[in-house]
């Protein structure tokens, strides 16, 4: 059904593309004769005067809108459903949104002071959970030691909080290293940008 939805949207887009392309070709060769315009005009007038045509046109439009909405909902719900980790319990099913796992990993940035910024991306596959972490580090950080510590903390935290036995693959990508000077410069810039209130030193009697 999802494939059908994708095919539907592809067909609609291709049709629009072909029409636009044909118009471009017709315009570039000056093939748009007054007769053509007259023919289109006559057709439109005929449709306007005929009640049956108007009803058919309106209903087809509504049907097309309904079909496209249902396909869109179907595709979106499928995509949403895939972004969870699920396990059954005696009372029902427990699903954990991958964004919740990302929230959990984001909190880990507070534990390690050398990490300036942390952006996780979690993917659940048949092999297990793949965690992709992009980090911005401070200059004083020892990268091999810190990344292995981050991997270990992330793995143990996920296992502890989610209680899962599946394999957890943690990939770390160091995107940037912020030097001390850069950090100080940024701090100074933010201090400079702070607006000063005129006559703020004067008190009121």
């Amino acid at each position, binding site marked *: 059904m999802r494939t059908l939805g994708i095919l539907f949207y592809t067909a609609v887009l291709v049709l629009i593309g072909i029409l636009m392309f044909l118009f471009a070709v017709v315009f570039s060769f000056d093939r748009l004769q007054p007769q053509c315009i007259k023919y289109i005009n006559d057709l439109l007038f005929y449709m306007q005067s005929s009640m049956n045509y108007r009803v058919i046109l309106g209903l087809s439009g509504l049907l097309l809108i309904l079909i496209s909405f249902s396909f869109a909902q179907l595709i979106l719900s499928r995509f949403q459903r895939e972004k*969870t980790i699920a*396990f059954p*319990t*005696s*009372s*029902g*099913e*427990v*699903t*954990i*949104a991958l*964004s*919740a*796992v990302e*929230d*959990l990993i984001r*909190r880990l940035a507070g534990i390690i002071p050398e990490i300036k910024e942390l952006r996780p991306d979690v993917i659940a596959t048949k092999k297990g959970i793949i965690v992709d972490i992009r980090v911005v580090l401070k200059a004083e950080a020892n990268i091999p030691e810190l990344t292995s510590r981050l991997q270990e903390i992330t793995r143990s935290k996920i296992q*502890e*909080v*989610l*209680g899962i036995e599946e394999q957890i693959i943690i990939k770390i990508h160091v995107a940037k290293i912020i030097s001390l000077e850069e950090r100080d410069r940024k701090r100074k810039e933010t201090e400079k940008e702070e607006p000063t209130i005129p006559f703020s030193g004067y008190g009121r009697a």
Partner: protein
Amino acid sequence: MQREESRTELGTIRIHKNVIASVASLAALEIDGVKRVGGNFRSGLMELIGKKALSIIHVEINKNEEVKLEIPLVIKYGFNIPDIASKVQENVRNNLEKMTNLSIKDININVQGIEKT
């Protein structure tokens, strides 16, 4: 909205789905570690409109008058999710059975986020 109906000698007693959702929401919030009920885009939108637990918790009653619930949750940081989820399921089941005498089929928990206390 469909209602759960039971007959007595004096007439019928109907329990609205919203009541089931409210009981489930309150029972879920009783568990230590649950930050709030909701958390996804739909529930945020519903909260904005003013519909709290009513539309956030999805309640389904089948032909055999069995209730199926879907509860979206936001869990506090540092708590074990499976542990909290099973506690919520148990508490919701106990409270619903005690208050409404309904037969509960499934209580599905959907953890949508983790927030710091």
